[in-house]
Structure formats: C-alpha cells, structure tokens
C-alpha cells in the first residue's frame, strides 16, 4: 500500500539530495572540524558553507549569526534562558498561549521561579491578541517569544510588528519559526527580530539538527557550556553530516519558495479543504484562511472523535494527525484549539492535514474518496449522531 503522507508539520521526508550530501561525512570524511590537521579541519569549510546557506534562507546579514543546534527545542531553550540570564534585573516575559511545548515549558518553569509571565491569547481564528500584547509589554519585559506560524492550524502571526513593538520597549524578541521556514518567505534582515529558531526536518532535512539565529550585537549566553565550538556559543563537537544536510535542505527550500512550488501546494490544500467541507456536513475549519502557511488545513468533524478517524485513515495508508485528547495520551484536547475557543464537540474531532511539495493530486483524491464514508461510519456509532442529522 502506498503511503499518503499528509503529516508534514510533524516531520518531512529527507530529500535525496540531502542524503547524498550527508553520506560522505558519515564515511570517509569523518574528521573533527575543530582539528588542526587538514583531514579534520577541511570539514570546517563544509560547515561554513552550510552556515551561509541557512543564513541565505532566512535573510540573515551575516553567516555567523547562525548557531547550529541539535533541534529546535534546543534553539528555543537557548534563546529563552539566554534572554533572561543576560538581563537579570528584568522580571517579565511574554509569549503566546498557542506555542510549542519547547516554549511553553521553559516559560512555565520561569513562572515558577518568580517571573511575571503573560501568555497572550488568540481569537477564534487563532489570531494573536495584539491589543492585549500592547497592554502588558513594558520596560520590565526581558523577552517576547512568539511563534511565526502555528503548527496545528498554520495561522501566521504578524511577527515583524510584534518584534518592532518589543524593540521599542527594550525587550529581546525571539520567534519559533519552525513551521514557517521553508513554507513562507522568512526574512530577518530588515526586522527587529533578535533570535529565531528553525528545524531541518520540517523542510526535508534530517532530524536531529536545527539552528538558532542570533542577531549580531544581541546579548547572549550559551545553554550548553564546554568547548569553543560555534564561537563559544554552543559547545559540542560539530555534527558535520547533519549540518551539511541542513544546508542543502535550506537551498532546496529557497528554490521551492521562488519557483511557485508552494503555490501548487496551496492549491492542493485548498482543493482538499473545499472538497471535504462541501462533501461532509458539520465540519469547521480551524485557523485563519486569510493568513495561513500554504500547506496546512485543520478541519473539525463534529460529533466524532479524532483518534477513531485517524485509525480508519491509517487503513488507507493516509497519515494525518489530530488535536483530539485521545491521540496524545493527555486527556484534554489541543491547547491551541482550546485557546481559540473551539467548542469541545469540534475540538475532539479535529484533523490536521499538512502537505508538502511531494503531495500529489492522487493523494488528495484518495482522502476525498474515503473520508465521507469514515465520518458516516463513526457518526452511526456515535450517540450524538442525531444531533448532526
């Protein structure tokens, strides 16, 4: 059975070009990039190239503003703890209510350590509450960290504007851009963004490598202390093959943003969304269709439960994900959907389809073919089906 992979916000397939570029560094080019000898030291050049490739993708002015990390969670933690440790007198931090756990958990931890923390809410479409943000932002704010695009709904936040306001009050601004990089143009150059996290495996790079952009002149303190790597900003022997892989993935992503590929992805996503919501009653689109990354749609199917839907989709080789409580092992539905005020009967039955440039019309056709039957079958079992009828 062919796998129809519509879960690209969870991870993507590593591109063949990326794998080909990485392989030599597992084999004959195994040297340590920090070594004095040519054998190891020549790998330094490969890292420098990758650094420039990543800088180009996000429009960073200088390549040395890119620090390689092991994942975006590490990038996020590094940014947050650096911001508070370098500004010990400031005791207020701001984020949104719909962030990834790699932001949420450090913020909650800092709250337990006595920080004033504001989690800015969103409206029913998932839009950032700018008025509330302006109210709470003040001179005591050490850090504002707000995601560029939401992983579950794809909703895009006005990051440049939030960064500008943060700067005005003297706060550092960080953005978790994991779900934006490679999907929409992300350019830090002419903005007030101080730090930005990205992850290779969300745009056809390998898992286990990410980067943190830190604008030159930004106060910084390393999270991992030890060796001199990354100019003392991130200790640990450079992961040469993965860094090379991230660089190649960045080049490919830039091409896709420029050659119309992402427009084709958006068209497929729209066809899927339109097809499902017109063929099936009691559905609801979660997120803001007017400001959304091109590959994501989040649709709630009323009166049935997400895990059950996923299990039936799985029979057709279709991979998607759900904001339902039952899929995560936690008992409450997605914190993102709850922050948006999505009613429970819809939150439990939400399905996220996230496409990529590898998605085909046949993939979409298969989902459109099987989904109405799955929903009908589950609604037949559901005691709430009469409500839906």
């Amino acid at each position, binding site marked *: 059975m062919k796998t129809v992979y519509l879960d690209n916000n969870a991870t993507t397939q590593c591109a063949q070009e990326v794998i080909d570029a990485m392989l030599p560094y597992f084999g004959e080019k195994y040297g340590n990039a920090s070594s004095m000898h040519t054998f190891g030291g020549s790998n330094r050049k490969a890292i420098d190239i990758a650094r420039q490739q990543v800088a180009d993708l996000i429009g960073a002015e200088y390549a040395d503003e890119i620090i390689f990390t092991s994942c975006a969670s590490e990038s996020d933690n590094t940014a947050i703890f650096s911001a508070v440790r370098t500004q*010990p007198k400031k*005791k207020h931090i701001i984020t949104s209510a719909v962030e990834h756990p790699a932001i949420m958990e450090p913020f909650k931890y800092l709250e337990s*350590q*006595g*920080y004033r923390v504001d989690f800015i809410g969103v409206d029913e479409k998932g839009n950032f509450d700018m008025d509330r943000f302006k109210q709470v932002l003040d001179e005591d704010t050490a850090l504002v960290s707000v995601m560029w695009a939401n992983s579950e709904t794809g909703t895009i936040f006005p990051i440049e504007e939030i960064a500008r306001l943060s700067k005005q009050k003297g706060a550092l601004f960080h953005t978790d851009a994991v779900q934006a990089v490679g999907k929409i143009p992300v350019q830090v150059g002419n903005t007030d963004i101080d730090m930005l996290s990205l992850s290779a495996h969300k745009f056809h790079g390998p898992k286990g490598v990410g980067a943190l952009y830190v604008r030159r002149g930004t106060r910084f303190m390393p999270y991992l202390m030890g060796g001199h790597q990354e100019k003392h900003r991130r200790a640990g022997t450079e992961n040469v093959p993965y860094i090379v892989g991230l660089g190649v993935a960045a080049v490919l992503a830039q091409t896709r943003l420029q050659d119309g590929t992402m427009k084709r992805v958006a068209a497929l996503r729209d066809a899927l969304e339109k097809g499902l919501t017109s063929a099936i009653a009691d559905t609801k689109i979660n997120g803001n269709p007017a400001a959304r990354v091109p590959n994501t749609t989040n649709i709630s199917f009323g*009166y*049935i*439960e*997400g*895990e*059950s839907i996923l*299990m*039936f989709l799985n*029979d057709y080789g279709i991979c998607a994900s759900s904001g*339902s*409580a*039952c*899929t995560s*092992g*936690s*008992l*409450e*539905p997605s914190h993102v959907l709850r922050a948006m005020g999505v009613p*429970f*009967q819809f939150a*439990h039955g939400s399905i996220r389809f996230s496409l990529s440039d590898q998605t085909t019309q046949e993939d979409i056709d298969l989902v459109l073919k099987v989904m109405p039957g799955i929903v009908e079958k589950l609604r*037949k*079992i*559901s*005691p*709430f*089906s009469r409500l839906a009828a």
Partner: protein
Amino acid sequence: MWDYTDKVMDHFKNPRNVGTIPNADGTGQVGSLVCGDALKLTIKVNKETEVIEDAKFETFGCASAIASSSMLTEMIKGKTLEEASKITNQDIADALGTLPAEKMHCSVMGMEALEAAVKSYRQGGKPVTFEQEEEKIVCHCFNVSEETIIKAIRANHLTTVEDVTHFTKAGGGCGRCKGEIQKILDKVNACQITTPKAEEKDFSKMTMVEKIRRIEKVLEEEVRPKLNMDGGSVELVDLEGTLVKVRLLGMCSGCMGAAGTIKNLVEKALKEQVDPSLTVEHI
C-alpha cells in the same frame, strides 16, 4: 501510535451490537461531548429470569472506547443481571487482550454504563445517567468523584496519581486536584504501605550540635542536590532558636528567585524533615 491488540482493532473496526434497542428495559448513559467520550447502553431483560437477552451501544470516542463498548455488549448478553453486575473494567480489558494504561478509563466507562443500565431497569426503564451528584467531586475538569477514584484504586491496585489519571481521567485536566488524589491514594493504600519512620529525637530537646547536624543533613541530602542542578548551593551560617540563617551560593546568589527558593525549597524541607517551627532567613 497506540499499541492496540488485534481484538481491540477487530471490535473497533467491526463493532458488535451498534444502535439502540427500541423500548429498552434499561438505558444507561455515561460521559459527554465535553469529556471526549460518551457511551449509551440499552438492554433488553427477561422479566422472569432477569437474563439480558439483548444489548446495544452507541459510543463517541476513540478506538478503545468503541472496542470496550462493543466487547461489553458481547460479554453481558446471556448473563443474568446479577452475573453481569460482577463484570469489572479489568474483565473488559482482559477480554480485549489488554488496553494501553492511558486508555483504561475507556473500560471503566463501560462498567459505569452497565451500572446505570441495571439501575434504569430496576427503576422501571427510565434512562439513567451515571452520575456522582451526591458524591464528592474531586476532579472538576472531568467530573470524577471520590468514590470512583477509590473504586479504581482498590480494583486495580493503583499506587500513583498518574495511574489514577489513566484509569479515571481524574487529574488529567488542569491538574489542580492532583494533591487531593494523592491524599485519597495515601488513605486507601495506608493499610498496605507501612514504612515506620525511625524514632527521632524531638528537635527542642537536641543539643546545639545535634540540631546543626540534623539541619546540615537535610540541606546536604534534600536541598543542595536540587540547587546544584541550577549551578547553585546553600550554606548554613547560624542558628538562633528556631531561626535558621543561610546564605545562597553560586548561581543562586543574586538570583531573582532567591526569596522563593528560600521559602519553597529550603524552609519547606527543614519544616518537613527537621521541625515545623523552623523559619529560614537569607543573609
């Protein structure tokens, strides 16, 4: 990805006895849309023999909720009400092979629906919703009563709050009731867990040297390891009556959370493990 057994998948994909029995002799309901799972069970009962002749269900929920409901109807058909009432959630889980720990509450839901359906039959067939109105609600997010929690602890030999959450959902929402669940666990398991504490001399009767040794021991074993994780430490400076004077070191000195650290970590540990009268001051 849940590790579901073939039985679970079979009953999920091909659920038995779906629907409602018209003019049912008993109707039991449990759960709601808000909870994320709900089950409606209808039964047909032979008035003379009290044998359950037919059972049907409708379920809103995940694969294990649907499978548990389906299995339940298969298990109770042909049994008398008395026999059926003896079925526990563990029996349902066993019949399905097993359920992931996080999904045990699905089988509990089956047991509760049956309880409600039997009650409904006894009361003349009027639908009964399994509820805990008169009881003390512990978890308000999922409306779980103390009785439900106690039953689950006893029946399944639960020992941790996490277990209780897996079985009853209690504590799985905001988490505010976790402390209370721990108390219930302690109460229920009190007869089984008996680790007698070593007799310790009353603090007020210790000599100064003994007092300092005792405080130093708690600081060393309980407090410093936690502070060390953040690159800090603490030293005992002086003791005046019940006032303990300490100094924070390393990353902790000058840390903006210092006051909280003193209160929530150092003082709490000393109060609990040395003497409740102690107060801690940072100098």
